[in-house]
């Protein structure tokens, strides 16, 4: 078995055996989607809340896998000297990073394989969805969130990183237009929220899947900016030990 395959298998095993990560990447997105679709208490501004929630929860899933799950896992690996130990094997940093990226992509595929059918079962019927546009958004969003997650993981101690990632997750979830529309946020905060990576990704996905958002170009630019700046910052800030 090649080194890359071996490391990818180890990454996936680590994710599958970590119940907290499964809750974060799959449990919470599914619960939010189902609960707020059936209990119509969010000011979504749509006839059926699922039309607003489905793209937002897909964006949430990307953030969960690429930022929080990757960031927390990598942070603890750094604290427990797993990265240092792997650094003395023939694996090399390049293959380690590729294995981590592939594992995030595979987790996202599983998330979408669950979330999209659940959304359809809840009555989601997107009008002329642009799946390729959404896929591009997911790829760029993954880069942005992975960069942010690794910035924190590469600098903070394991436990502090855990708290920081979870805190950031909550802020980006609440302000990112995923479950609460930007229009319901106070004026100044709404502008800030749209500049967040979560805000940009939820706008990109909502536009691609529902054609209901006109802020596509600016959202794309913001998301692309995060996708360049965050990985670059992670490369500069990351400490392997």
């Amino acid at each position, binding site marked *: 078995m090649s080194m890359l395959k*071996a490391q990818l298998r*180890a990454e996936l095993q680590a994710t599958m055996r970590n119940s907290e990560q499964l809750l974060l990447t799959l449990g919470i997105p599914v619960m939010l989607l189902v609960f707020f679709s059936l209990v119509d208490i969010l000011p979504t501004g749509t006839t059926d809340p699922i039309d607003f929630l489905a793209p937002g929860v897909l964006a949430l899933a990307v953030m969960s896998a690429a930022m929080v799950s990757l960031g927390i896992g990598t942070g603890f690996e750094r604290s*427990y000297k797993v990265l240092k130990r792997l650094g003395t094997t*023939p694996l090399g940093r390049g293959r380690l990073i590729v294995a981590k990226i592939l594992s995030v992509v595979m987790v996202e595929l599983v998330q979408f394989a669950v979330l999209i059918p659940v959304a359809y079962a809840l009555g989601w019927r997107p009008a002329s969805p642009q799946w390729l546009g959404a896929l591009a958004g997911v790829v760029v969003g993954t880069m942005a969130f992975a960069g942010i997650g690794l910035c924190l993981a590469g600098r903070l101690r394991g436990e502090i990183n855990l708290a920081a990632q979870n805190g950031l997750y909550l802020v980006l979830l609440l302000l990112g237009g995923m479950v609460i529309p930007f229009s319901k946020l106070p004026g100044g905060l709404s502008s800030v929220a749209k500049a967040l990576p979560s805000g940009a990704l939820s706008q990109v996905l909502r536009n691609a899947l529902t054609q209901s958002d006109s802020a596509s170009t600016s959202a794309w630019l913001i998301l692309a900016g995060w996708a360049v700046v965050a990985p670059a910052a992670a490369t500069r800030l990351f400490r392997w030990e």
Partner: protein
Amino acid sequence: MPAVEVDDLVVRYGDLVAVDHVSFCAEAGAVTAVLGPNGAGKTSTIEVCEGYRSATSGSTTVLGMNPQTEQTKLSKRMGVMLQEGGVSLGARVGDIARLYCDLYGKGVNPSALLESVGLDERIRSSYRRLSGGEKQRLSLALALAARPDVAFLDEPTSGVDITGRQLIRGIVRELADQGCAVVLATHELDEAERVADHVVIFDRGRIIADGTLDDLRSGHDEIRFRTSPTLALAELSTALGLPVRALGDGEFVIDGDAQHVGALTTWLAQHNEPLADLRAGRQRLEDVFLRLTGGAL
């Protein structure tokens, strides 16, 4: 050509000089023990040899390669055991052994590897459920997965019980007998004394002794014994014509060789002093260290 050559190595962390112009060699087929207290510079030196850390100045060659510029090539022939950690808490023993066997690609069977370190019955256990000694044995197994030509083992017996220590000692000896250059960093002098062919003693970033155990202990014979704590030291010293020192708790040491044992036992019998734990011969490594550093580990 030695398997490991460290020449005038300096490692600085800001203003702190962790390794101060250190030079030594480690041969293939031998166990080289790098000894010294915590913070003496052992781990920093070994990390430079592994290619993990950059030197401030000086040169290091491992298996004829520069660890900094040829780390990828070197890593295929190098086994490493960290002082602690190195495995995720949730990882299963069997999975982690399989991963490292695949990464090194030397055809090592993970089950056989775990059996060799006595962990074959823990194959489905997670790392967090292992005892301290079992963790050390797993870490050693991961180094063995490389079928290494050079092995850097950092504190391999730390926290390991007596049975585990014997097992690890046996594996280390076998590795060296197969031609591997084993570099073993430890602050446990007893372990080094039992397994090392060559000893390098670090103190405050510098090497203060370098040689075989016989080299370091030669010319420093002693007689140790226990008797009543109120022993008349000066009188005994005069009778034997040798210096006698009290070590505490009724233990004494005479700087002299075994030919003075007869005179000692006779004197003790004449003075109705008890005698226990009599040992005569070359100094223990701990005594060598104390003599050289004037301090304890």
